[in-house]
C-alpha cells in the first residue's frame, strides 16, 4: 500500500524501517526485563544481535526454499548481474517461521557460547517475539507483499508494485489482524512472565505457550490470506503445515514433561 517513505529525497523501504523500529523497541524491552532480574544487559544485547542474524538468515532461506521453481534459472544464467537479480528475487523475501526457527537456533547457540542462564532467557524472550512480530506485521501491511482475500470489509490497494493483480480490489487487512493478535499475545505473555515470579510451574513454559497459541492463530488466519504465491502443499499453505507440526511438537513435549513429572513423583 505504502511501500516507501521519502526521507531527504531517498525512498526508504517502509517494511525495513518498521521492522527496525520493532526490533529496537523489542530489544529495549528485553534488556529491561533482563536488567530487572539482576543480569548483565551487555550479554543480553550480544544475545539479541546473534538472534537477529539467525532470524534474517532463517527467514530469507525458508522464503528461498518456497521459490524452489526458480532455482534452475539461476544455473542457466551466465551474466553475474543477472544472477544477482535472480538471487534477489529468490531470497529477497522473508517467511516468519523461517525467521523464528533461525532465531531459536541462533539463540540456543548464543546461550551455549556466552554461558547465559537458559530458563531466564527463554522466559524473557517469549513475550518479545510476538512484540517484534506484531510491529513488523504493520510493515508487512504497508509493503503489500502479502495481502488478504477479497472481502467487502477492508482496504483497496492501488499502488502495489509486487503483484499488480492485487490493486483495485477491496481486501481484508489480515496483516493488521495478525499484528493486533501478536501484540495481545505479547501483553498476555508479559503478564504471565510477571506471574511466574510467584508461580514456579510457569517457569520455562512461556516459550511453549507462545508456540501453542501462535501456531493455532496462524493456522486460522492463514485462511484469510489471499497470497497463494507464497507456497502451497496440497490444500494448505506451507505456513499452515508448519503450524500443525509446531503444535504437534508442543503436544509431544507437554506429554513427555507430564510423564517425567509423574515418574519422578512416584
Amino acid at each position, binding site marked *: 500500500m505504502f511501500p516507501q517513505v521519502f526521507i531527504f529525497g*531517498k525512498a526508504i523501504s517502509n517494511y525495513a524501517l518498521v521492522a527496525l523500529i520493532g526490533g529496537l523497541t523489542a530489544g529495549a524491552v528485553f534488556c529491561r526485563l533482563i536488567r530487572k532480574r539482576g543480569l548483565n544487559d*551487555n550479554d543480553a544485547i550480544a544475545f539479541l544481535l546473534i538472534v537477529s542474524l539467525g532470524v534474517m538468515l532463517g527467514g530469507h532461506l525458508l522464503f528461498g526454499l518456497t521459490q524452489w521453481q526458480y532455482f534452475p534459472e539461476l544455473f542457466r544464467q551466465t551474466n553475474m*548481474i543477472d544472477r544477482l537479480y535472480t538471487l534477489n528475487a529468490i531470497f529477497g523475501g522473508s517467511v516468519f517461521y523461517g525467521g523464528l526457527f533461525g532465531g531459536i537456533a541462533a539463540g540456543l547457540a548464543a546461550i551455549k557460547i556466552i554461558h547465559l542462564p537458559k530458563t531466564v532467557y527463554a522466559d524473557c524472550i517469549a513475550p518479545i517475539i510476538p512484540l517484534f512480530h506484531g510491529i513488523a506485521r504493520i510493515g508487512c501491511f504497508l509493503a503489500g507483499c502479502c495481502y488478504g482475500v477479497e472481502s467487502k470489509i477492508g482496504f483497496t490497494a492501488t499502488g502495489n508494485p509486487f503483484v499488480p493483480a492485487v490493486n483495485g480490489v477491496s481486501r481484508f487487512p489480515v496483516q493488521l489482524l495478525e499484528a493486533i493478535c501478536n501484540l495481545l499475545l505479547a501483553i498476555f505473555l508479559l503478564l504471565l512472565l510477571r506471574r511466574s515470579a510467584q508461580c514456579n510451574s510457569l517457569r520455562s513454559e512461556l516459550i511453549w505457550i507462545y508456540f501453542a497459541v501462535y501456531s493455532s492463530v496462524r493456522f486460522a488466519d492463514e485462511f484469510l490470506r489471499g497470497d497463494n504465491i507464497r507456497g502451497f502443499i496440497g490444500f494448505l499453505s506451507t505456513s499452515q503445515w508448519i503450524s500443525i507440526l509446531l503444535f504437534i511438537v508442543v503436544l509431544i513435549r507437554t506429554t513427555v514433561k507430564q510423564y517425567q513429572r509423574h515418574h519422578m513423583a512416584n
Partner: protein
Amino acid sequence: MFCKNCGKEIADEALACPNCGAPTQPTQTSTSAAPVRNPQDGRGLSIAALVLGICGVVLFWLPVFNLIVLACAVLGIIFGLKGRKKSIDAYGKASGLATAGLVLGIIGASICGLGVLTCTVCTSCTGCGIMSRL
C-alpha cells in the same frame, strides 16, 4: 556523633573518644578523593565504537561504499559491546561513554543497513539507478 566503642556522645570532628580513647572513623571528606580512573575500562574501544557509529549515521547514503561503512558500523557494535563489558568489569556499572559507544554503534549500523538496502541493493529506490548502469 557517638563513639563506636563505648557509645558516649562525642563531638563530630573529634579524632578520638575523650572517654575511652578509641579513634573515631575518619570523616567522609578526608578520605574522599577524585574517583580513580581504571586504565582497563575499555575507554578506547568505546570511543572507537562512537566514531564508527557516527560514520554509519553520516555516510549511509553513499551508494556501494555504504557496504564498507556498514561493515565498519557492525565493527562499532562489537567494539561497543567489548568496551561496555570492560567498563562494567572495571567500575561495576557501565560508564556513560561506554553505553553511548554501544548505542551509537547500533544506531549507525541500523541507519547504514537501511542505506544499503536503499542505495546499494536498490530494493526500493527511485533515484540514481546505479546498479543498472554497472
